[in-house]
């Protein structure tokens, strides 16, 4: 009895802060997942009907038949530009159309010619263009193998797990014996979870396919999960789940679904990186197994020595509840090829206004205008820069978005004007649940236009959220999104001004009284069930909001919109954060792999709530979190309503100084961050990136997720351990040099370096061979620093060369698209540092100049000469620190946008 009581107590106590797992489905509780997972690898019942094959220049089609039920599928295979193969499988003649995800691909992907290499009764071999790549289509059983030379890169249905639940009429007659007898299982035509029933009007409709990855031991991606960077095998538990959910107090290191879903997986080994993009927006589960998982290092070595081992292989299986199979196989071969391949499909990171890369101060909630003003003044008083102050839901008039609380925020424009005068900005929350209230304009318009999502019986769907009873606009409709965007016009959104930006929260969507705290799957979006589109909802909300911010400025200003829910392609619309984390050390640690995983699948603009949302951080944790957040792409402090205040100056002068220093480091590096975003916007490469992306052949980097790179050139190993006295950072690259950015101490690459730390330490290293521009005159907001001069940090590699770039534009408009920017290539070679125009067709002028050049790893020159465009020469004064080999050039003074060179003699 006592032990039972203790157990009960333990459950209650632990329940206080942990996720209530019972609110969310396991695979076993999700009928289609249970059904599909019950299928075990074996011989596939599918057979390719080669006689149905049609091959045009760019497309192969082929029918597949399931020998068990004779249902036919149509396989389409495309060779896409940029080394991508697209495989599409749908029912040949579905009872009604099955959902195909729109709006995520930026265009119909351009194809490349396919050609037939050989054909016999067992299958066909197609050439995938260059690089001796082929696809082998085997007929019986059906499978696809993608080869390069003699190597199999990837196989589809090699484990026979292709499954396609065809649409069917519900048969109420019991067990009529017929040729295609289908077992009717529980959960096919209706299922329930807790008190929620799912009417499943279309019956079973799941799709599933397996992929084998020979030679692969490391797979990444499929965010969002609070898990390690390297994905784990799922044999002994649930698969990784992709289903956008508002998970209260989420737990770490498990495969449960979180707020967003990007169905993209990267597979990597020292030779090659490949990717799988499973374009399906329904609830999806991903199983991962590996033939080397669980083997010890010794075991693997033994295998290797004895030569007896099978090649390592990772097997992956995707299961989705509805829709079709539409999968993009990205063949790399390098990590950067994968990024550009994926970017060619779904687009790149949006280019945010520069200020959005600065520091954001948020809290649920700043109580009123006076509070906002006092916090704003507090930053000035304590000389800590910030750019954005945020308002959570309490700023509204009774959780009616687009409105202001008439008492607490009676004159929002006055408040916003106060911020304008400090060159600062504000973000106010606009959630997609709309209070059902006939006195609320937004609600009335949405209802009268019929824009709400409908329930299964055809009425407007209603659920509970912050405002109480709420409707959910159907963001899958383009006309709805256009209307929503128009609501951000200055004359529609009362009290808004050009320095007010937007935050979309709760867009999974969160429905407090819905199944798994989200929408019923049988709610209707026009002809489609919510089941089909669920994971797209948040993507569309952010899309429409960003469009609204663009339109209100007549297409001039770049938007800034933060979202909690996301899907593939969300990178095009703004930033995401990792949701409602907690003030715990493990949550600080997990922020790194969570943002790294997002970066790998295109979403670079990622951050975690600094300090932790739930609970109250210790001062040490808060300081460490600022130090970590200062080096992550989206840098925002946030706190729950019920936590004590934690503005940076509330923890004594010493800690205020530590936080100030961390934030100032961020501001000095804003030119570099901005440049990284410009690059990400061009290429789709992640900004915060795992080490293996830059050192793909070094297996030591493959599982590292306590340190990361920003771009290529900065390596960060934040201190994320309580009471840490030192960290061990892996410095990659055996030909690399790494310079401690604080001390300029030089270290060799390919080593584990122990770095003693104090509370002020943020271990950061600049790669030898790089040039990083900074602005050292930190002011109270990034906009105040616009015209300030640059200091160039030139870190020399062993060959005594270095290169970098300098990107400058107006910082906030789309004029860069009209070639109004400066892009300089900076290079140091043969003792000459020069700035060359990389974009001769672009035009922009800046008042910024070069105030200082610091060359790390230099030797002492006798003379330094500056040469500028007109051929004028002048001497530059310098100082040399022999102990650290640091050469500082004093005030060369040239404009940052012109050609120049500096010669060391």
């Amino acid at each position, binding site marked *: 009895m006592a032990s039972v009581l203790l157990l009960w107590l333990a459950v209650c106590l632990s329940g206080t802060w942990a996720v209530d797992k019972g609110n969310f489905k396991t695979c076993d509780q999700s009928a289609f997942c249970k059904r599909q997972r019950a299928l075990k690898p074996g011989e596939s019942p599918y057979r390719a009907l080669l006689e149905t094959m049609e091959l045009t220049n760019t497309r192969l089609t082929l029918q597949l038949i399931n020998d068990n039920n004779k249902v036919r599928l149509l396989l389409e295979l495309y060779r896409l530009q940029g080394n991508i193969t697209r495989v599409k499988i749908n029912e040949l003649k579905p009872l009604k159309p099955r959902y195909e995800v729109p709006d995520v691909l930026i265009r119909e992907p351009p194809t490349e010619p396919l050609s037939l290499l050989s054909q016999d009764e067992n299958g066909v071999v197609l050439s995938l263009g260059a690089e001796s790549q082929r696809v082998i289509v085997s007929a019986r059983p059906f499978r696809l193998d993608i080869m390069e030379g003699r190597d199999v890169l990837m196989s589809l249905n090699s484990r026979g797990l292709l499954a396609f639940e065809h649409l069917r009429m519900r048969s109420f007659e019991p067990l009529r014996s017929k040729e295609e007898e289908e077992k009717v299982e529980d959960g096919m035509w209706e299922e329930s979870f807790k008190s929620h029933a799912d009417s499943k009007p279309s019956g079973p409709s799941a799709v599933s396919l397996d992929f084998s990855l020979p030679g692969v031991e490391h797979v990444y991606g499929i965010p969002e999960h609070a898990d390690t960077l390297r994905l784990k095998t799922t044999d002994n538990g649930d698969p990784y789940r992709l289903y956008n959910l508002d998970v209260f107090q989420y737990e770490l290191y498990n495969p449960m679904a979180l707020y967003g879903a990007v169905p993209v997986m990267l597979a990597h080994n020292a030779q090659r990186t490949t990717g799988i993009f499973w374009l399906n927006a329904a609830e999806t589960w991903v199983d991962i197994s590996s033939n080397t998982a669980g083997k010890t290092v010794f075991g693997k070595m033994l295998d290797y020595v004895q030569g007896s081992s099978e090649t390592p292989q990772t097997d992956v299986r995707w299961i989705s509840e509805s829709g079709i199979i539409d999968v993009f196989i990205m063949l790399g071969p390098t990590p950067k090829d994968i990024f550009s391949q994926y970017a060619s499909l779904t687009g790149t990171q949006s280019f945010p206004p520069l200020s959005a890369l600065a520091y954001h101060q948020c809290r649920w909630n700043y*109580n009123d205008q006076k509070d906002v003003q006092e916090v704003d003044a507090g930053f000035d008083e304590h000389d800590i820069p910030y750019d954005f102050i945020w308002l959570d839901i309490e700023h509204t008039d009774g959780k009616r978005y687009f409105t202001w609380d008439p008492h607490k925020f009676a004159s929002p424009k006055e408040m916003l004007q106060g911020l304008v005068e*400090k060159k600062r900005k504000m973000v106010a929350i606009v959630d997609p649940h709309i209070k059902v209230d006939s006195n609320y304009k937004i609600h009335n318009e949405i209802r009268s236009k019929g824009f709400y999502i409908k329930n299964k019986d055809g009425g407007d769907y209603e659920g509970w959220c912050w405002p109480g009873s709420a409707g959910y606009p159907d963001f899958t409709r383009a006309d709805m999104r256009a209307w929503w965007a128009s609501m951000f016009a200055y004359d529609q959104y009362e009290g808004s001004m050009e320095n007010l930006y937007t935050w979309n929260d709760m867009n999974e969507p969160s429905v407090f009284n819905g199944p798994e705290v989200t929408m019923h799957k049988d709610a209707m979006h026009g002809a489609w069930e919510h089941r089909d589109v669920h994971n797209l909802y948040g993507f569309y909300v952010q899309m429409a909001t960003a469009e609204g911010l663009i339109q209100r400025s007549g297409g001039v200003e770049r938007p800034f919109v933060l979202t909690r829910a996301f899907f593939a392609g969300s990178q095009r619309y703004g930033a995401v954060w990792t949701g409602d984390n907690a003030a715990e050390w493990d949550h600080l640690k997990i922020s790194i792999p969570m943002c790294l995983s997002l970066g790998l699948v295109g979403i670079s603009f990622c951050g975690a709530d600094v300090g932790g949302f739930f609970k109250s951080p210790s001062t040490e944790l808060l300081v460490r979190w600022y130090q970590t957040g200062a080096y992550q792409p989206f840098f925002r402090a946030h706190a729950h309503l019920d*936590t004590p205040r934690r503005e940076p100056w509330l923890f004594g002068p010493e800690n205020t100084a530590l936080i100030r220093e961390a934030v100032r480091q961020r501001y000095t590096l804003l030119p570099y961050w901005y440049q990284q975003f410009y690059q990400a916007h061009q290429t789709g490469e992640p900004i915060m990136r795992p080490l293996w992306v830059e050192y793909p052949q070094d297996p030591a980097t493959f599982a590292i997720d306590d340190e990361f790179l920003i771009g290529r050139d900065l390596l960060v190993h934040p201190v994320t351990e309580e009471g840490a006295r030192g960290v061990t950072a892996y410095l990659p690259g055996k030909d690399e040099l790494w310079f401690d950015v604080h001390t300029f101490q030089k270290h060799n690459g390919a080593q584990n370096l122990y770095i003693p730390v104090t509370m002020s330490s943020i271990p950061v290293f600049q790669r030898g061979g790089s040039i990083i521009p900074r602005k050292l005159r930190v002011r109270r907001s990034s906009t105040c620093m616009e015209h300030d001069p640059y200091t160039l940090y030139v870190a020399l590699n062993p060959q005594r060369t270095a290169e970098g770039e300098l990107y400058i534009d107006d910082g906030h408009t789309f004029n860069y698209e009209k070639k109004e920017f400066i892009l300089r290539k900076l290079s140091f070679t043969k003792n000459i540092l020069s700035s060359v125009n990389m974009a001769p067709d672009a035009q922009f002028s800046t008042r910024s100049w070069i105030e200082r050049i610091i060359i790390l790893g230099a030797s002492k020159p006798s003379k330094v000469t500056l040469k500028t465009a007109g051929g004028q020469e002048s001497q530059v004064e310098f100082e040399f620190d022999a102990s650290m080999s640091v050469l500082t050039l004093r005030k060369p003074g040239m404009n940052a946008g012109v050609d120049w060179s500096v010669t060391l003699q």
Partner: protein
Amino acid sequence: MMSYQYLLLLLLSLGVSAVEVQRPRGVPLSKRQFYEEGKPFTCLDGSRTIPFDRVNDDYCDCEDGSDEPGTAACPNGSFHCTNAGFRPAFIPSSRINDGICDCCDTTDEYNSGAACQNTCRELGSKEREIMKEMAEIAKEGFLLKQQLIQEAKSGLEEKKAKLAEVQVSKKDLEDKLEALRTVKETAEQPEKEAKERHLKAWEDEKAAIRLEKDKAKMAEVFLELDDDADGFVSVADLLTHSELDPDSDGSFTEAEAQGLLGGVDKVDTAAFESVWNNIKEKYVSESNADIPAPVETPQEETREPVPENDSEQYPEEDIPEEEEDDDEEDEDEDPDDGDYKSPPTTQTQEQKDDDDEGTMPPYDDQTQNLIDAAQKARNEFDEAEKALREVDDQIRNLEKEISFDFGPGAEFAYLYGQCYELSTSEYIYRLCPFNRVSQKPKYGGSETNLGSWGKWTGPEDNVYSLMKYEHGTGCWQGPNRSTTVKLTCGKETVVLSTSEPSRCEYLMEFTTPAVCQEPQSLYPDAHDHTEL
């Protein structure tokens, strides 16, 4: 008069700018001597010496930022604005030419294109006005404070006198109480004895009556059993009463009957006395036996007429099959065993049995007199005890009040025992200094405790500027509510505002003359500078 002042200010400001050209931008007058035109400049921290043309050349040469007092080049520099007409100020260098007007004399934005207006004169006059007002308030408030201190002093004296007085009366009360205790105890002894006697007499009487009843019953039963009226009860006579079967096995044998009769075949009335003791528990009168009482009926059922009640009250697994009667009765005796309350019927039956024996007769006069006398002594004692308790309370309260930290001159003493309210759109806030803070919804709903008096929590040099009230009603998933009361000088004693800057941590602004400082100590420097 006005125009004269204006002219004077104008002249002054001209004079100031004339001074300014003689020192580098951003240098305060007090440091002018370190910046000598044309001579090498030594960083103020002494770290290095540089040519004078590197002062304010927009490049940071000194670690301490002292070479760039007028530019934003040094991350840790500061810029001095003269702000003629207002207060001079230092601002961080990073605010120079950032497009934001920080100095009211606009000198920080000399190269940013920001359209700053010189607002020093307005600010100055506004500040002077406010300062004048505040000085007036402080002056009056300070007078009030002196008064409060006087009142507190005399109040304290009064309280101390009162305390002394009460302490004396306490001694009297204690003596009186002791005397009354003796009286009470003396009266209670005979009372107790008399009561015991009375009770004993009544119990004896009851026993005699019971014996009589039993004898009568025995005689009656003898006649009833003696069917043949031969003056003997025989084995045969007994056998007609099957309920007397000693082992209740359904067959009442002659041997068993003989056993009941003490081994003989029949007994006369004298001998029946011992038989009666064996059978009276089971015996059923023949007059009752006319009503058919089936022999098979288990005894329990007849004895427990409402078993359904039991099944409702007992958890199912505890429903007794047999032999549970004893347990039940044990449990009945324990009324605290809440879940296992006995059926009420049992209790009433028992009470009825008691009633059969009648009630105790009233006390005789003598006993009653003793009781009355004792009761009177008790009442007097209780009253004296109560009076002493009250005096104790009074002493405690007085001591508490006397020892309370009401400030250096006890100027806050007048707040003790008072309450002040502030009504907002939603709530009425109530501050009872040195006691508690609470919040009550305006339109119905219960009061919430925002904290009880904790301590003074002002900074070391001004401890009496902040009050802390702690341990209020707990917040869901949060701390217990607490309130900080910020005291500012005012003529009136009022709650100015309340807010909740952090969840469940309230802030109240409260004015009182008790914190007013002596006026001349206010803004000692301000006047000098504004007259610059």
